[in-house]
């Protein structure tokens, strides 16, 4: 059952929500009963439908409570099926939500959207600045998931969310894959879904780290340097991936870098294998840097058990920079990704709420 608070005005309601610790620190849209009902209606499901429990507080995630978060985050009703899929994905046991929310590491769920829902439930941007400000769907969908993690899951900084510093992606961290321009099949098809499926994949991730690389069309081996740089970025010795190993990490290739690798004859699987092979450090080197985590012994420590522990997608504008997201690598399932189908079979268009609908996830105003 959702609590109902009363206030004399929207301004007073906002202050009340801040005081109760129910916001992320930024102003929110007040989740009035009408707005929440409209958001529930957009989901096509009953308000009391239970998606699961969210740790560490073990709160019950009902459709109504998720709708409250979506309203507060500023979502359009169109986005609701993606928000619901993201909540379902983090609730899956494989995601280790309770441990992930409680850790001292900065990890935050990166939401990756694939398939037709990128457009019909967005548009969710996959182009220039997709992880930055200015994209309403990206900004509000990621924020809605965070608000569910706080207000249903009970994560509070310094009390139940023990991240020492956190990172800005804990406010929102959402993008789509640029399927239209990628030389590779969409990420979700690599994960076992059909091309026409709409899928949300969440993965615990550090803030994005930029990887610079300038191609050289005269150099037939230009892809080797790019692979080296990506490997250094995603598993340098200061990362948990290098020290603790065996956690899934993310690589977001920009169109140029994806093109370089594609023209070298590499598939997504090949790229993952190449990066995986490069992500290993001599135990002696790791021991010297951090003896508490790396015992003195011969041989090397591999950052990733297998290439499947690298999620590789294409997004972003055209230029020199790709992004890598090292990860936490802990929890029972060692920082595994979790995917959920976006179910919009019963989703309901809300009259008057359909705004700015575009046929392209990279539409410009």
């Amino acid at each position, binding site marked *: 059952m959702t609590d109902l608070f009363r206030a004399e005005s929207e301004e007073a309601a906002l202050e009340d929500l801040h005081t109760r610790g129910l916001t992320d620190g930024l102003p929110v849209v007040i989740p009035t009963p009408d707005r929440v009902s409209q958001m529930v209606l957009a989901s096509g499901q009953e308000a009391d439908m239970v998606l699961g429990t969210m*740790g*560490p*507080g*073990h709160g019950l995630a009902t459709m109504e409570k998720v709708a409250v978060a979506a309203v507060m985050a500023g979502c359009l009703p169109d986005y609701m099926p993606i928000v619901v899929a993201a909540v379902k994905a983090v609730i899956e046991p494989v995601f280790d939500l309770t441990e992930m929310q*409680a850790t001292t590491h900065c990890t935050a769920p990166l939401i990756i959207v694939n398939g037709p829902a990128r457009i019909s439930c967005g548009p969710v941007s996959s182009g220039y600045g997709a992880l930055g400000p200015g994209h309403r769907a990206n900004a509000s969908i990621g924020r809605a998931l965070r608000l569910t993690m706080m207000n249903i899951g009970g994560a509070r900084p*310094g009390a*139940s969310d*023990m991240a020492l510093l956190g990172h800005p992606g804990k406010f929102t961290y959402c993008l789509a894959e640029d399927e239209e321009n990628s030389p590779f099949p969409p990420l979700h098809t690599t994960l076992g879904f059909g091309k026409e499926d709409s899928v949300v994949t969440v993965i615990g991730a550090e803030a994005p780290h930029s990887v610079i690389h300038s191609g050289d069309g005269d150099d037939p081996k230009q892809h080797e340097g790019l692979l080296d740089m990506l490997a250094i970025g995603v598993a340098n010795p200061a990362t948990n991936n290098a020290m603790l190993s065996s956690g899934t990490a993310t690589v977001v290739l920009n169109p140029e870098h994806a093109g370089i690798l594609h023209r070298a004859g590499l598939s997504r699987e090949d790229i993952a294998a190449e990066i995986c092979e490069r992500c290993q450090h001599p135990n002696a080197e790791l021991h010297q840097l951090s003896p*508490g985590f790396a015992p003195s012994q011969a041989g090397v420590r591999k950052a990733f058990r297998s290439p499947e522990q690298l999620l590789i997608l294409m997004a972003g504008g055209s230029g020199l920079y790709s992004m890598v997201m090292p990860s936490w690598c802990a929890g029972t399932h060692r920082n595994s990704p979790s995917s959920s189908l976006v179910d919009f079979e019963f989703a309901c268009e809300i009259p008057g709420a359909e705004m700015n609908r575009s046929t392209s996830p990279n539409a410009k105003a």
Partner: protein
Amino acid sequence: MAKLGVPAVALVTQEFWPQGDFVARSLGMPDVPRVKLPHPIAGTGTANMKAVATQVALEVIKALEGCLD
């Protein structure tokens, strides 16, 4: 462990005590045995860890014995 009936005690550092309270409550086990340690413990060296262990050993044993009552 405690839910399975296995005698268990959680060692929690001072900084994480409120988090321990929260998790214990949310799991419906507000009285799960816990022993408070100084913070930080990790990386403080073998000598300090031995000293802390000596300090709390009796308390840990008592907590485990309490599980058998």
